[in-house]
């Protein structure tokens, strides 16, 4: 029997999915795990798969559409001859009064109490034996998705009232109309306003370059929203430590010579970070109002810079993985992150994060915590410096500065300091990693 196929809730933070392209056409037969369409979620481009064999009867959404999770995007069934008129009518009704609009009505039942999307309830489900139906697991996440995101997806800037001459003159003089105060009715910007506009005091009187509007893609918006939330929600403090890295450098040099695999300083450092979290598990934790979750393993996020954004793929259970495994996974995850191929579960839910700008010659910096973790380690450059050695003599040594941002709700100052002591122990004595 024909049924809806819906935009999946691919990650906890996903509000809408941007339908990039259809990989199947109407009339195509489908096998389980066939990719049916390509979708850009808040963090990654991904293929969405079907769970049943059957046929793609009808496509309900066009490439380029931003579609809320849970909204039907296609009708699947067993044969092209099936009658889908009822489903199409349901879809029209659904579009006319989507669940988000219902939830916004004060008298409506809470979304959580609703059985799910209107078409799912209107069209009786007939699960195919032995398979999981997309709308089944969709139904569970849909309500929460609607509650989280009643807002609109694309927001246009306010219209600036201005005369045609003012706009022309502003364009000629490279003046942004947003910067000009209008003196016409209701603040309409007229030619004289543009003529009399001067750069703010202190500005230099040089021709300005043309301002550009870079539309925010879903990744940019997710970064903005999540980091703003983190920054405003968590009371943070910073701890900075200088590590003596002479042995660290020597250790990696020996490993490189012995192992037929690229291993970076960052790989080695992540192993140290994971091991130190075993010693201080209270730093591998997350805040909620009722309880602090102390995670059972170290899911170590590593910040990877992308064109126009960043993403934090996760090395799961890093504490129990070897340096070689960590190095291999890190390399593989970073590669797929850069090509936009990470799956949502590969970048959500880190318990601790490492952000390393050392390769860009940043000596030290602070980072913003990536929830649900309660701390992030900002790693500066590993460099040779003049150091005072035992006996008061000057020498040259490898040094590295790290700054840990701690959520004070979870990590107190002394705890954070103990963690950095533990980390120092491993960085300055990497042979301990083998113990």
């Amino acid at each position: 029997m024909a049924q809806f196929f819906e935009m999946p809730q691919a990650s906890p933070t996903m509000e809408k999915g941007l339908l990039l392209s259809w990989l199947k056409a109407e009339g195509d037969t489908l096998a389980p795990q066939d990719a049916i369409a390509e979708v850009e979620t808040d963090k990654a481009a991904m293929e969405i798969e079907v769970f049943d064999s059957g046929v793609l009867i009808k496509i309900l959404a066009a490439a380029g559409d931003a579609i809320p999770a849970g909204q039907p995007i296609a009708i699947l069934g067993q044969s092209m001859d099936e009658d889908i008129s009822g489903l199409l009518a349901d879809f029209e009704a659904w579009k006319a009064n989507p669940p988000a609009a219902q939830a916004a009505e004060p008298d409506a039942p809470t979304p959580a109490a609703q059985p799910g999307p209107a078409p799912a309830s209107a069209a009786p489900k007939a699960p195919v034996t032995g398979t999981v139906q997309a709308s089944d697991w969709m139904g569970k996440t849909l309500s929460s998705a609607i509650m989280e995101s009643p807002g609109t997806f694309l927001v246009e800037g306010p219209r600036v009232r201005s005369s045609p001459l003012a706009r022309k003159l502003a364009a000629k003089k490279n003046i942004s109309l947003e910067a000009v105060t209008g003196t016409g009715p209701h603040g309409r910007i007229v030619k004289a306003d543009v003529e009399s506009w001067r750069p703010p005091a202190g500005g230099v009187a040089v021709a300005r370059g043309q301002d550009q509007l870079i539309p925010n893609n879903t990744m940019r918006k997710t970064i903005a929203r999540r980091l703003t939330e983190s920054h405003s929600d968590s009371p943070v403090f910073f701890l900075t430590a200088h590590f003596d890295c002479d042995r660290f450098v020597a250790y990696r040099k020996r490993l490189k010579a012995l192992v037929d695999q690229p291993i970076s300083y960052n790989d080695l450092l992540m192993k140290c970070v994971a091991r130190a979290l075993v010693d201080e598990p209270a730093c591998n934790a997350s805040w909620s109002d009722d309880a602090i979750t102390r995670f059972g393993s170290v899911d170590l996020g590593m910040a990877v810079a992308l064109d126009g954004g960043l993403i934090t793929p996760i090395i799961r259970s890093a504490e129990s993985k070897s340096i070689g495994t960590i190095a291999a996974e890190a390399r593989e995850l970073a590669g797929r992150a850069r090509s936009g191929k990470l799956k949502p579960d590969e970048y959500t839910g880190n318990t601790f994060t490492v952000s390393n700008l050392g390769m860009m010659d940043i000596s030290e910096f602070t980072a913003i915590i990536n929830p649900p973790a309660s701390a992030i380690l900002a790693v500066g450059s590993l460099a040779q410096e003049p150091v005072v050695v035992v006996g008061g003599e000057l020498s040259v040594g490898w040094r590295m500065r790290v700054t840990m941002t701690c959520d004070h709700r979870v990590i107190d100052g002394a705890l954070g300091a103990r963690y950095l002591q533990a980390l120092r122990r491993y960085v300055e004595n990497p042979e301990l990693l083998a113990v």
Partner: protein
Amino acid sequence: MSDNSTHDLVVIGSGPGGYVAALHGARLGLKTACIERGSLGGVCLNHGCIPSKALLKSAEYARLAHHLSDYGITVENIAVDFPKVIQRSRRVARKSEKGVAYLFKKFGVELVRGQARLTAPGVVQVGETELRAPHVVVATGARARWLPGMAPDGERILTYREAIVSERQPTSAVVLGAGAIGLEFAYFWNALGTDVTLIEGADRIAPLEDPEISKELHRALGKQGITIKTGAFCESVVRHGDDTRVTLQDGTVIDADTTLLALGVRANLEDIGLEELGVQVDGGFIHVDDSLRTNVPGIYAVGDCAGPPMLAHKAYADAHTCVHRLAGHDHPAVAPRDIPSGIFTQPQVASFGFTEPELVDAGTPYTVGRYPFAANGKNRGTGYTDGFVKVLIDPELGEFLGAHIIGQDATELLPEIVMAHAGELDAETFTHAVHNHPTSSEAVLEAVAEALGVGVHL
């Protein structure tokens, strides 16, 4: 209103500046009085704009009557009943005056009849009545002026004031001055059969207009039979028996039944107490700032008495700005340059902004677009092919710098460009507005297209 005030606003004069100031004052909630010694509505409604339109329509029909055969209509025994022409005009004027009285009543403006005199800032004496208000708007208007060697006698040497009510049609007339008033009387009398000689001191008639307009108007009025002398200064006008004798500086003597002195107007500033209160007067007009304030706090001046251009709609604009601002409301000031002008001869003349020589003198870059009504379908159909539209446009932004129209409906066609200018519409956007076909307004569109180099109908 302070305790000893009788009003919030007192307006002296009920011409276009005065009655509009009073109505807006009342509309904005000010307790307002308007003082008038003569007829409500001032020169405009009683002896100017409106009754003259009645006369000019008669003139237009008289000329048309002689051309109806061109349209296949035969009329015989065409005759002019001059007193009836004047009487119709007077009825129109009386109706206008009643209109102002009605509006005063509707908006709650108190009308005070009599001669007003400012006795102190904020104190106006009208006979036995003393009006006290924090704001006093002087809107006393203007009257005809003349030069040494001449003076109106009210019988044969006239100003517009006597001419517009006189039921005696002159057999011949000399009109001194080829501004709007002189041109309109010359056209009017000539159309009804008076032998008219028009004398202008400048080197062209309508000397404030673009020279191309003057040239076309000269051609059209000359064709209608008006004798036109430009660059001719008048030395004296005297009575010569029953007639008048005009002597020009070059010695030429012209005898005519009637001479009209149309040499401009001067502000009415006498006997209202301005001098005693120290109100500053510059060049014969009350000095005001762009909020129409005089140098004496609480005293304002609008319209003709506050300086040129001497036009009713300039007085309206002054009154709007003045009263809104004194009542604490925002209101833009209108630049004199943006005030349009009109001459209601046939063909009509209408213009605003810069003339072409003014742009040349200022070194302002411009492009010009012209479109003759002879190329416009509607005008060819109706037979009104005299004249053209000329627009002056800033080549960089497409701003309208000036527009000059001569033709049958010039005064009704100009406001489209005035509106575009006021709304800061650029010429290119202007041409994107679809115009009704067939209309004379298409000539305006085509002139703009010509200026942009995108016209295809010429």
